[in-house]
């Protein structure tokens, strides 16, 4: 149970006892049913995290002054002694139990190792391929994250590995690079034992870097691969989700990005329907195939999983079918005859987009999420207008489209209200 809920329950229970509704024994029995989760002191963790990062940055900046009167061996000795001391303190505190202080010290250890790397490169005037410094620092942070299993370390590792991968992709135009494997390793680790928001963050970072690599390999923005990999993440999100709220949290940002941006591109931007990879054996081609294989395996995994959330089974199945159709269309683009790849494909992707919108509206109704219903109803209306305004010259037909869309929105609103009343 969340802290906010616990606080509410404690206040209410005290009030009930004060009013004589429950006895003291009953009051205690109720509170005992919902114990406070262990180590849920976020405030303390945040303080130690900030302290570690600020202290670590202070040490980095201290050495950045580059004291000429301080011999290089002395500089090295200072930073290495500090690193070893903090590492020892972390190890010692970890022996007793996991505490915010131990995690804070672990973070300081990571920062000090970073300071040592930059100091060494400063002392020896090293300027050869600076992403390598972030690689060493990031991999070290990743190792500590896996050992200490706290989100603070994982977040630091994600930031450092993202800088490493970003530098390789955007500055040195890398395609298939070990930085992607490191990000993938972090993603898998987040999957196993990190909070949902961090899993989502690492998924987005990995996806961004993967796409940057594909762009470097193919020279065109690979919308099709975006679609395939987004589908992959969505499928994995479903597979991972143990409850409706969990997978919605994880996919909260991913799904709108997928449906609104990508399907929109596919439906309306004919020029955007370029292949992200060719049939030649380029790195992009292999990455594309890899993404396809991953999508297939995600579907297979999903089929084998027990049904974890009965209420959303239909929506999940429908989303997956739509994803499968989208992917099948996308992956077969290279083999679709040119005469068929114009408005026919546009219409197919519009239908998929509309079907997605209707599924979201249904889901929003069922879960009584007004914002979701409203946004996707609006998107549905925009799709109709954008697609059909250019087709209808006749003002009468245009007015009819407005009337139909308006009526449709009223219908959605009425359906939402009816569901709300029934539940109430």
């Amino acid at each position, binding site marked *: 149970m969340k802290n906010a809920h616990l606080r509410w329950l404690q206040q209410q229970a005290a009030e009930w006892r004060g009013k004589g509704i429950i006895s003291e024994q009953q009051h205690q029995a109720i509170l005992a049913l919902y114990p406070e989760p262990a180590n849920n002191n976020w405030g303390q963790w945040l303080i130690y995290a900030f302290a570690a990062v600020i202290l670590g940055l202070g040490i980095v900046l201290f050495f*950045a002054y580059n004291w000429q009167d301080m011999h290089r061996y002395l500089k090295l000795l200072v930073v290495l002694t500090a*690193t070893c001391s903090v590492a020892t303190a972390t190890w010692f505190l970890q022996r007793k139990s996991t505490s915010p202080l131990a995690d804070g010290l672990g973070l300081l250890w990571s920062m000090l190792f970073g300071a040592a790397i930059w100091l060494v490169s400063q002392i020896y005037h090293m300027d050869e391929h600076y992403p390598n410094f972030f690689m060493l620092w990031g991999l070290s942070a990743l190792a500590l994250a896996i*050992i200490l299993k706290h989100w603070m370390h994982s977040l630091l590792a994600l930031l450092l590995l993202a800088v490493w991968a970003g530098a390789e992709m955007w500055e*040195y135009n890398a395609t298939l690079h070990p930085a992607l494997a490191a990000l993938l390793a972090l993603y898998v680790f987040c999957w196993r034992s990190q909070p949902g928001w961090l899993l989502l963050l690492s998924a987005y970072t990995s996806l961004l870097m993967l796409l940057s690599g594909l762009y470097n390999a193919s020279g065109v923005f690979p919308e099709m691969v975006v679609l395939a990999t987004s589908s992959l993440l969505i499928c994995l999100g479903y597979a991972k989700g143990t409850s409706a709220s969990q997978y919605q949290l994880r996919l909260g940002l991913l799904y709108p990005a997928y449906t609104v941006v990508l399907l929109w591109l596919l439906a309306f931007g004919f020029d955007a329907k370029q292949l992200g990879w060719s049939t030649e054996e380029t790195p992009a081609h292999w990455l594309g195939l890899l993404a396809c294989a991953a999508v297939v395996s995600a579907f297979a995994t999903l089929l084998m999983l027990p049904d974890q959330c009965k209420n959303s089974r239909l929506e999940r199945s429908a989303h997956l079918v739509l994803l499968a159709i989208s992917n099948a269309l996308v992956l077969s683009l290279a083999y679709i005859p040119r005469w068929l790849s114009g408005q026919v494909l546009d219409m197919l992707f519009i239908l998929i987009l509309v079907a997605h919108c209707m599924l979201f509206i249904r889901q929003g109704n069922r879960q009584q999420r007004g914002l979701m219903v409203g946004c996707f109803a609006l998107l549905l209306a925009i799709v109709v207008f954008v697609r059909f305004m250019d087709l209808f010259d006749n003002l009468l037909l245009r007015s009819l489209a407005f009337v139909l869309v308006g009526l449709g929105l009223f219908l959605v609103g009425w359906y939402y209200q009816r569901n709300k009343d029934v539940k109430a």
Partner: protein
Amino acid sequence: MNKAQIWLPVVLVAQLLILATIVSKHENIMANGEVVYLRTMPVDPRDIFRGDYVVLDYELVHRAKGLMQENNLRADNVYLNLRTNQRDVANLVSVDSTAPTLGLFVRGFASAFDHSYLPKLQLGIEKYFVEQGAGKELEAIRGEAQSWQTPLEMRVALGSDGTPVITGHRFSPIRTRTRFAEQEDALAQPDAPPQHLEFSIENSRLAPLTLFDDQAHCGFALVHAETLRPVALNRNCSKAVLKRIELFPGDRYQVEIDLSQLQWQAKGQSDPLSLAEVDRAWNGFRLVYQGQVDTPTADAEQILSARFFRRGGVD
């Protein structure tokens, strides 16, 4: 004992081993490597993690880029063969894609190309970290555009595999000044390019400096600023007899070139602005003192002007 208690020391040991490997490699080169000086053209920014530094633009890297382009040499790792002059300043002899077994050489990285299809060649020692504020002092001695400038010469130790490690710096004993004789606001026509380039050399060392030149200035060559490759000009210096000029400490030698003259136009083009066309493609020019035309050697003192543009302006 839980898993964390076992693995945390392993991580610490791995970190220390990584740092020790980097430090020991560089310390070994500093202690045992062959020491040369590399001439540079610096500027002065700041690194957020490592403080003030001077960006080092090595003269021999420019020459190596030109050679690589001329020989169509493409390799991630390249080796610059060097020969030192009397003052231990290294001059470029050749560039190879394989490490030489003999002689002095430095390893470079050239994994990409710039917009002019020139290799982005780097030695990995393009930053010289200094105490905060010291970069400005170095910059002040180096001098500003159109004033007297003193090149920075980096003291570099070379490892057996060509890895360079900076161990210090000094200033060249030869100062130069590059400027146009005409003030831009005093030109007859506002859009007309300046014509008269002045390149002055001053000997500020204790020993005399010997230069060779003639009235046509065949001791000097016009080169592209990026590659330091000669621009093909409408002149023939192959039979020139150069006069010996002794510059004693404190003496100056000034070269004045009229860029509107045919002999300073790009070969095959009589258009007075033909250099301007080349200029647009090559990002400016430099004037380089090359000494005796018939017998240029890597041992000679090579003196380079600041970068200038045919349409006006000196860096």
